[in-house]
């Protein structure tokens, strides 16, 4: 149960692009063809390993519908990573990325890692957005990019883990202020040497190599 770090993610993007299915595939390893509309925000969690360290991912899956936008905006600030999802078979979901990105950049902390995901890669026949276009968009806006399929599970694991790797790297580089939990990062109990009250001091020790 113990972990070295805890990262908070959010999943954003237009309605129907498969955000909830991505989460379900990642946490439960199953696919649900007919998924209820997400109301507000739903929660999911899983443990992963990076660099031999246990990392707990807490993921908030948001509703894509416009009417929930004011609710979902509240989640940007406290997240360390965001999966921005579009549907490769629906160009409009790709066209809306700019709006999403603006929204995210405006409300989140500046270090938030954003992973661009073109979902439904299994529906190659109905593809409307080329992979190159996604790559170009990601390059232009400084995002990581991947095409996934929540149905076949292709790249799903990688998408979540690569985002975590990026965050982990940023921590190593000292970019994140890990003592501020508002950044969506928490140091696990096993990282602090003694009691919980020494948490802050302990984390400073762990970080020692970087901050000096």
């Amino acid at each position: 149960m113990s972990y070295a770090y805890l990262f908070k993610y959010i999943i954003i993007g237009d309605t129907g692009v498969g955000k909830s299915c991505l989460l379900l595939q990642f946490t439960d390893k199953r696919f649900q063809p007919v998924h209820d509309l997400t109301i507000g925000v739903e929660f999911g969690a899983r443990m992963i390993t990076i660099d031999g360290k246990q990392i707990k991912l807490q993921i908030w899956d948001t509703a894509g519908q416009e009417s929930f936008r004011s609710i979902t905006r509240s989640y940007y600030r406290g997240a360390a990573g965001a999966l921005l999802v579009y549907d490769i078979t629906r160009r409009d979901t790709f066209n809306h990325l700019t709006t999403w990105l603006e929204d995210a950049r405006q409300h989140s902390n500046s270090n938030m890692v954003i992973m661009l995901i073109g979902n439904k890669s299994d529906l190659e026949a109905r593809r409307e957005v080329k992979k190159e276009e996604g790559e170009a968009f990601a390059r232009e806006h400084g995002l990581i990019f991947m095409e996934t399929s929540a149905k076949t599970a292709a790249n799903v694991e990688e998408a979540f883990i690569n985002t975590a790797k990026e965050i982990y790297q940023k921590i190593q580089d000292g970019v994140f202020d890990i003592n501020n939990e508002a950044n969506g990062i928490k140091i696990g109990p096993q990282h602090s040497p003694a009691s919980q009250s020494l948490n802050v001091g302990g984390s400073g020790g762990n970080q020692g190599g970087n901050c000096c």
Partner: protein
Amino acid sequence: MDYFRKVLGAPQDVQTNSGADTVERLCERVSSSTLLDDRRDAVRALKALSKKFRLEVGTQAMDILLNVLEHDRTDAEIIGYALDTFYHIMSNEPTDEDDVSNVSGHDLGGQFTEIFIKHAENVSLLLSFLEEYDFHVRWPTVKLLTVLLTNRQKELQEIILVVPMGVSRLMDLLSDSREIIRNDALLLLNQLTKGHANIQKIVAFENAFERIIDIIRDEGATDGGIVVEDCLLLLQNLLRNNASNQNFFKEGSYIQKLKPFFQIHDEPHSKQIGWSAQKVTNMHLLLQLVRTLVSPNNPQNQTVACQKVMNQCGLLQDLCSILMASGVPADVLTETINTVSEVIRGSQMNQEYFASVLAPSTPPRPAIVVLLMSMVNEKQPFVLRCAVLYCFQSFLYKNEVGQSQIIQTLLPTAADANSITAGQLLCGGLFSADPLSNWFASVALLHAIVENPTQKEQLLRVQLATSLGSPPVSLLQQCCNMLSQGGKLQTRIGLLMILCGWLSDCPIAVSHFLNNTANVPYLISQVSSSEGDEHEAIVQGLCAFLLGICMLYNDDTSEAFSKTALKQIMQNRIGLESFTDKLSQVAQNESYTRAAKKPHLYHKHPSEIVFDYEFTRLFKSLENEVLKAVSGSGSNMNGRKSGPSTEQYKNLLKEQEDQVLLLRQRIEELQSHAISADKSIVELQRQVQQLKDQNALLKAQKGSLSPASSISSDEVDSLKREVESLRLQLHNSHIFSNTVSDENKENDPDGASVLNVTIARLQSELAHKDEEVLSLRSELDRVNEVLKQKTSEQTAASSSVSNAEVELKLQQTEEKLKLITDERNHLQERLTKSNEENLKLANTIRKLEDEKVDAVNEKENLKEEMDTLKKEQDDLLVLLADQDVKIDKYKTKLKELGQEVEDDDDDDDELGEDNEEDLDAD
């Protein structure tokens, strides 16, 4: 104003007037003073008056104060006064300065709140004040927001949710180092999160669990004061009915963090007088928090996961030690029992642990036994006894091992006769003089055999020694005896419930029951009796149910009461209609509905106890089958055969048993079918809804598409017309050019032929174009047809056509349409090109014509010239003739004169020479 006067009452008029005047004057000062100091003083004075003259200040100063908030932000003091004033006029809580009459039922604060929040910007303004660290601003803002939330919760929640970072800013207050702000923020958050799942989730996302648990720990856990209570209430708010937050709570390992709060330091506390009221409250809330996480009404996987964590982290163990600890107040103990119940309910691991818990008595007894002792003890508080029953039920829920352990203690074994067992206690309760104990014991026993045919049969073996000397009586019979002896309502209902549960699904028990010939007549007499109040009706209904079960699970071993015989008796003695009527009365009863709601026994008074949750489920599942069995046509009416061989009987029995088994299987199958059917219905409904939505969408799309296609057909038509006219034009020009070329042929043969060729080419092009137009039109027709087809398809789509297909087709049509439009554009382009060419040709023709005219003109000129020349020549000829004549004349004259005249030719020369000479001479 009249209304407000009424509120304040007549005798206060004088004072009110003077107060109102002052308020008016102060308002004027605030709004007109240019000096900040003056305004500040006035607002301070308004604040001082705002408690006593709420109404006046509220009605007159609201806008002015809002103005102050907006424009005097830089001065913390004046903002603080203004906020305080608002707080006073919004707050409905009585203050010491208030007269009792002043605090009438009128919701003044609510009305002012409504006015205040009418403009959502006012709330945003307040939220923006939270960024101000100054105590004078932040604290009154927190208080004001709290009172606004208290007065108009729903509206304010929606406003705050929409304000960017609204909830987050409120959450940040929990980190304020000033305790008073932190504590008031807790109250604020409590109001903010009540009944609003989305806000609850955002608050949880902002690390609320962590922060609150930290505060609880820092405040001394359950030993802490009212702040701990507020924290626990907030946690409860965030978790109740919010599966997402519960999941987060579990995933965030917060259950483990609750554990230390349950450790009760037995030694020091037992010596003290007891628990403080605050500690009792805190403990109560803490226990309820645990129950929220494992409530039977939660999604099952959620509850199971939490139960597992609670066992693993030792929380269950701590709870069990509270259960067995001394000095714990009764209501805390009751709640602890309820909590343990829900932590172990349905979880085999936790049930096993619970069975192993020993009470610290000498000799140590199992906790279950100790608890059962309280249940059948009249002197224990009623709610505690209910809790114990609930705990016992939860222990046996889906726990076959536990059930057999309990039944085992009733069976005659070589067990130690001195130790008290659960079985003994239950039997004691069953036959005690206390009706509640009877009820509790029978329900407990019911749960020991429910859905467990093996234990039902085992229980048949139980024999009771009634009194010395007389033969032992079976437990079943003893229950029947007690039932027939009458007794209190709860006793009879309890007994009927255990009998129904026992006999259902257990033909052997039925035959045991029928073997006593007194039982059926008793039931018949009960059901056929028509007297009695509501409670008697329940008993009669239950008797009918029991009778029905006797039929339903009858294996015909009892000759007197075989299935057929029973049916006949029933139909003759009671009547089908009356039977149905009695049976249906059970489910109609209010206490039945109440009990069916949830497994937890939440009765406040002993008289409320009637039905058990598990029994209501049994009743629900069997009611219809009983009715069917009773009303089914009597195919076996031919009666008993005389003297059938035992072999035959056995075969029949076997057959019937097989049949029963088969039927049971089918029932199960059908039930699962029904469940899956239900699921698929829900799914289908959802799909239908989706299809409908998509249909609407498609319709809308079609709506926007069809005008476009009609436009395109219009366009094509107009294009056709254009082509037609162009053709006409071309034709005309062709004719024209033909005539011209005819005329011109001699002058300009080459140009004419070129023109002809061009025209021919144009014509062929035109023909080509015509063809294209035709094909375009046919394609359009086809598209239209497809569209029409699609419309018809769409209307049928909601059930048959899959979305993808429709979508695909639509896409195809869209593509086709695009193709057609493209083609049309192309054609149009070509048309314009040919138009241009035509124009060019016309130009050439005109040029040629011009040229022709020129040529004709030239010809004319030449003719004229020639004419003049001819005329000249003619003149000259005439002149020549004249001269000839003259010469002849001269010649003759000369001849006459004797001069020799030469030939004509010479004459001429000479003449010339002469002339020359003449000239020379000159």
